């Protein structure tokens, strides 16, 4: 699996990110770092504890990272969650949070696979 395939798998825009970050090496470096980013954990934790302000910020950060990395799919769902959480907790936000979790799962899985391919 190469980086472009990885982007296809996680629903991202490879051309876009390459356009901005210029080299594949750089993109690969940041994509791999995405797995270490703590924002997702923070989001899950704050949603559990009901700290929706913190959840909003975490979701906002995920959105920002996704924009930088052109992870379009996760960007969409995290963006919607951010907007929903801006107004506080709601049924809608709950649904969107589930979507973000699912999208994050797929994104993380794709990156993990890509990483394995590199190591293997």
């Amino acid at each position, binding site marked *: 699996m190469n980086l472009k395939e990885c982007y296809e798998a996680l629903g991202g825009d490879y051309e876009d990110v390459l356009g901005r970050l210029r080299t594949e090496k750089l993109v690969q470096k940041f994509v791999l770092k995405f797995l*270490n980013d703590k924002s997702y954990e923070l989001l899950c934790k704050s949603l559990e504890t009901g700290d929706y302000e913190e959840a909003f*910020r975490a979701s906002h950060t995920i959105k*920002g*990272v996704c924009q930088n990395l052109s992870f379009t799919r996760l960007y969409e769902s995290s*963006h919607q969650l951010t907007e929903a959480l801006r107004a506080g907790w709601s049924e809608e936000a709950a649904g969107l949070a589930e979507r973000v979790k699912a999208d994050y799962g797929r994104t993380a899985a794709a990156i993990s696979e890509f990483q394995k391919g590199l190591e293997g």
Partner: protein
Amino acid sequence: MKNRITRFLITSAAAISVLCLVVFSFLAYYMNKQSGDTITAVGTIYMTGMNDRISMHFRTTIEMRLTQVEELVEEYPPEGSGRDGQGLAYGAKARGFNHLASCSGDGRFEMFFGSPVKVTDPEPFLQSIQNNEKKIAVGTDEDGNHLILMAVPAGYDMSDGQKSKALVAGLSVDYIKDILSLDENNTLVYSHIIRKDGSFVIRSAGAFRDTYFHRIRELFTEMGADDAERCVKELQSAMEENRDYSSILELGTERRHLYCAKLPYSEWYLVTVMPYGTLDATVGQLNDQWGYMVAGSCGVVLAALLLVFLRYFGLNKQQLAALEDARKEAVAANKAKSEFLSNMSHDIRTPMNAIVGMTAIASANLEDGERVRNCLRKITMSSKHLLGLINDVLDMSKIESGKMTLNMEQVSLREVMDSIVNIVQPQVKAKNQQFEVQIYDIAAENVYCDSVRLNQVLLNLLSNAIKFTPDGGLIIIAMYQEESPLGDGYVRNHIIVEDTGIGMSETFRKRVFESFVREDNARVNKTEGTGLGMAITKYIVDAMKGSIEVTSQQGKGTRFHVTLEMEKADVEEVDMILPDWNMLVVDDDQLLCESTVASLLDIGIKAEWTQDGESALELVRQRRREHRDFQIILLDWKLPGIDGIETARRINKILNGDIPIILISAYDWNDIEKEAKEAGISGFISKPLFKSTLFYGLRQHMGWREKAKEEETQQAGALEGYRVLLAEDNELNWEIASELLSEEGLKLDWAEDGRACVDMFVRSQPGYYDAILMDIRMPVMNGYEAARAIRELDREDKDVPIIAMTADAFSEDIKKCLECGMNAHVAKPIDIKEVSRILMKYINMR
């Protein structure tokens, strides 16, 4: 509901009216009776008093007379001077007596003077004299005149040698009558003096009967009353018992008060009768008045009540009507909103169509890089507009609550017109409409304006024109400028959108700028729309302090005229000069030709113009003959007679394809490109033809390199060595930013939140950092607070450029950033060019 209230009102009004009538009637009846009773009581008191007075008067008079007789006896005693009788007679005469006699115990009279008298009823008289009592009686003289006789015990010598029992003096009855005023006709009260058996002693005028009892009976019969006997009996028994008697005689309609009292020194009774007539009349009048008053008050109260009820009824009706109106309004509003939701897709679909269409064209021509680029450019424009529209729909609530704000920025009218023409082209094409763009007299291409809103206004007007113009119709958008009354720094822009569509009715024309309004007729219902477009348009134009006018004629077309004052942007315009080549402009619109030639002259080109293909060919031939060919030809696509492409073909035949021929059109180049290229047309310039459009459009065909590109490359590395503090809580984002910005030669320091950023800035040497890039959403302290904190520091470099970087691109966020003292805002994801440009701008500004 309505009926129930009406019924309740009517019922209660009726009930209250009846109650009112009953209460007032009772009041009238009660007062009537009460006043009658009072009058009776007053009458009785008055009568009694009257009778007392009369009998007192009678008593006083009689006693006075009796005293006079006694005086006579004292003055002329029987054993003294009274013996001869002369003195007595003299004394009696002097006291006004008519007769004087001595009377023996058996009733024999011996006259001292006056004619002989006879007692009418001698029995009680004699009895009283024999008892030596004072007494009065009635009698007659020889002529039958009635007399009052007064007897006082006295023993005068009689002719038979006996002593008399009493001295009797006589007076005419008239005297008593006068005294008692018994005969007065002008008094309402009349009195009689009667005996026990009812016979009259003294009768007042009008009493002709023998006895008073007869008279009563007669009177009762006369007046139609029937209890005469009862009255007589009561009177008789009262006289028997020597009581005073007082009674009210009800004589039919008339009432009389009868009072009977015993008179002293006699067996007589004084009967006084007083008719209630006058009193009754007065009382009756009072009662009548009272009655009228009551009836009047009753009427007034009823009228007032009725008025109140009617008013209430009216109010109630109004209220119900208002309620009904409100309900209808709510229903209409609801309907309008739901229609809005279902129709909203249309405005969104317009740019979407452009995107879809261009995507299709691009996919079909993947190998043609130029074409794909062109498509992508248009897709970008449409996407931008689509985003703007979606924002507008979200902003609708703001517009309605009047909170919309304008983002004034430098705008190129050329770009605005280009983008708008590009967006509407597919629609115009789909409906086979003719589309004309007229630009002339443009003094300032770059102005300050809210480009998104201006776009919105133009697109609303144009898409409406397209929507309501049938296939094959004509749509014109025109823009021209003139001097602004606001001064040299401003320019007045006229934008006219005209169509030959269905037009609108006069009534609708007046409402066209209201929300959710679409003309309600069969023709329009086929056309989709949100009904918000014109309201938004009007609102925006108002917010820009401009004006919008509409003229329309049903079936003929509509014309919108927008006038906006805009501030000129003082841009350093690239020195737009082209070689002074000879040029020919061919367009059927004279105004456009003249304006274009004027613009061309500005950029150094001498041009001629003509209005159709044939004359253009003629000119070309002429020049060829003169060996001074045109060096470039601008050719409109739609021309009268032979069209632009055919003209180009023929020109190329004449000139052997020596010179570039450029097509100008408001239509989409992609549609005609193939045909045009085959005809030997070398390029295309899209209308509207601004000066810059002409400059950039012509430049490529004149083999000019783009100077601007060189400038751009020169800029790389311009940020070399500057130090920037970057506040960003996310490590990954930081690394990316750091990586990208380091490429530009920037030195970056990382602060992981707002607090750290402020601290690092505080610890640094003044002037150490050239700028701060600030994320907004950070833990501990967010970007807004951090920016504020830095601005409040006591440092000479507290005005360091702070540029916000955030994923929020809402205008409020941008506004808030600026409010917190930040200089500018860039949206994520980081666009290194944009960030560099802004950093450059603010660093250089210091």
